[in-house]
């Protein structure tokens, strides 16, 4: 699993897909969490996102909730009892400006953690960090400070305006938001320690981008020490 250009080409709720096609370019009906396709869209996205928040990559849905068998033959989501969880999934309109006219547009939807949805609100967005953009590449724009467990703009970027745009989006998408950061640190720090001691680790199921960046940094440090004869 790697971050995380999200592939949204498959929509499990074929009923929603057909309905959306009929809407074509007309103004959409009012968006509401009570709408009959809300959960269809949400669970279809969770399948594409493998149960992770599209922006922060914290786990927001167990595997069972992301499987295709959550949908019936008519392409509708089958409601099931599920245990309550601290990090629950909510639908987000990436660009909130499109919410009023095109509130059901698939391309503008992501499933995200409820912890960051409220804060993101109607803040302006920049497509550079839209996870399903064709040219989306987190390594190009982001780096990870593995001591403080913070994402920041890649230090190789010299264009200050671009750095500002990236930093703004890190804040908007909640990548360093308090509870997300705290959970990321708690999840990744033991894995980082295991890696540095050369121990086997369990497969990583969340915060995959941060983990990959940590792995890369550990490798870089090791090769630097090797080259300096410090190993």
């Amino acid at each position: 699993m790697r971050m995380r250009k999200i592939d949204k080409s498959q929509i499990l709720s074929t009923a929603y897909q057909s309905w959306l096609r009929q809407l074509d370019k007309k103004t959409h009906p009012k968006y509401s969490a009570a709408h009959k396709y809300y959960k269809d869209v949400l669970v279809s996205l969770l399948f594409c996102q493998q149960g992770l928040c599209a922006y922060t990559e914290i786990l927001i849905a167990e595997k069972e909730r992301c499987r295709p068998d959550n949908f019936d033959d008519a392409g509708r989501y089958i409601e099931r009892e599920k245990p309550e969880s601290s990090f629950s999934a909510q639908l987000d309109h990436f660009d909130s400006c499109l919410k009023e006219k095109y509130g059901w547009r698939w391309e503008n939807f992501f499933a995200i953690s409820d912890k960051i949805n409220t804060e993101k609100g109607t803040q302006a967005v920049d497509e550079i960090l839209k996870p399903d953009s064709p040219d989306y590449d987190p390594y190009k724009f982001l780096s990870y400070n593995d001591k403080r467990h913070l994402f920041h703009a890649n230090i190789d970027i010299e264009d200050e305006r671009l750095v500002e745009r990236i930093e703004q989006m890190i804040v908007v998408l909640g990548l360093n938001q308090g509870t997300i950061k705290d959970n990321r640190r708690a999840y990744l720090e033991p894995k980082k320690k295991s890696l540095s001691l050369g121990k086997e680790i369990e497969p990583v199921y969340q915060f995959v981008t941060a983990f990959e960046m940590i792995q890369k940094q550990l490798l870089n440090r090791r090769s630097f020490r090797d080259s300096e004869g410090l190993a």
Partner: protein
Amino acid sequence: MPRDAGLKIFWFYAVNIDIRYHLFNQALGKCIRCTTMKIRQIDIKDYNQFKNLTLDLTYPKGHQKQGQPLDKVCFLGQSGTGKTSLLNVIRAALTANLTQEHDHILQGTLTKEYPMPITSQILITADFKKVKSRIEIRTEGEMVWQWQSLPLAMTAKQFMETFYQDKNKLIAFPAELITNLNQILQEKPVSPVSYLKTTAEMEQRSKASNIFDFETDNVLDIWNEILTDINAYKIKELKYSQQITKALGISAEEGERAFKNYQHWKAENPNPLEQLAQQLNLILNKFSLTVKTSFDFESMEDLKFIEIESLDGTEIPYSGWSTGTKQVILTMTPLLKLNTDDSIILLDEPERSLYPDIQTEIINYYTQLAPNAQFFFATHSPIIASAFEPWEIVELKFNTEGTVYQEKYYQGERQVDNYLIDPRYLRWDVILMRVFDLAVEGNEKFRNQALTQAARLEALLSKLKAENRLETEEGQKTWAAYQALATKLAWRLDAYEED
């Protein structure tokens, strides 16, 4: 099923309570009195925001008290999740009067398999060691008690009276406790005669009740009862003072004799306020205060309530008491003065008006003052929460349907090793995020952006250092920018160094 249609439980409309009592020995009242009473489970089928909620209030597997009811419980949750409602449910169960109707013999055992009666809305299960009893409050005016394993030839009423002889069933502190003091002080001026009369009345009240609920209308009566011995001592001291004055009017010798009598009495009779002061001062000294234990009787204020003074002896008038001082004195005094063995103690918002350093200690103070009671707290404070074992915390949350559920802190079997959160090990900010579900760690508008920028500057400094360029103009500029942000964020300035 026997019913007591006259019983009014006004704060909830449909309650069904189940209490299990256990008893070491079924024959002797003496042994009944040496048992403990604790609530072990609350089941709510349908009451207000609660639907099909079961709260297991026992120690989990692997704990040295495995299976026993919890010594203390802490209700957490967003406003409206029902923390205070749960305290009220417990209060309702314990303030109900027993009648002959409550002698019903319970059929079957009170295990998990025991079906909840169709008419029931809430079940509370408690232990009196081996005596089991079940109380069902079905509607606003309908409550039923059922008993199992009562001591031979004892009615439920007799059992309860024996069990609670010289003990107290309930001590309940509301969140707005400090209004108690206003009520006491607003009473008309007191006289020694009225105090003595009140004391006699209080003795009667005490025998009839065993309930100390500081939310009720008769707060003054309750406080007079708690301070009975202190008030009696003050009155006696006042009398000696009057006798000395009178004797001095006759002759110096008479005055000296009266004074010696007073000294003799003082030596024989320790001031009960001294004992109380010793404990209260443990906290009051942190506020640079102390309990005043000597009286000049220049005003009748000396007879009204406990008085305090600064450490240099300046008396602090009641109008000058801080709300924290009031909270400490009004909660700790009853626990110091009353017999709390087998009591259920309800304390809503124990953090009220207390500075964080006091909050870190207050739960330990309370539980040490009443080691054989069962406490139920409701709080919004992460500091208070850190005083509890994870299984002692009941975190209530709303689900998407608007009903309340308990957040589980363990995975799989309810076993000590399966708990994922233990607030005793966490920093306050982590408790806020993990236990209280606060999503942010500070003022995100300012902090988050600064963190993101500082993390980049830190990475840049590492790169510049590796390239041996820290002393260049760019290096110094980057360091200055980092220093400014890191100071604001309270970061260690040397923390950008590589591990």
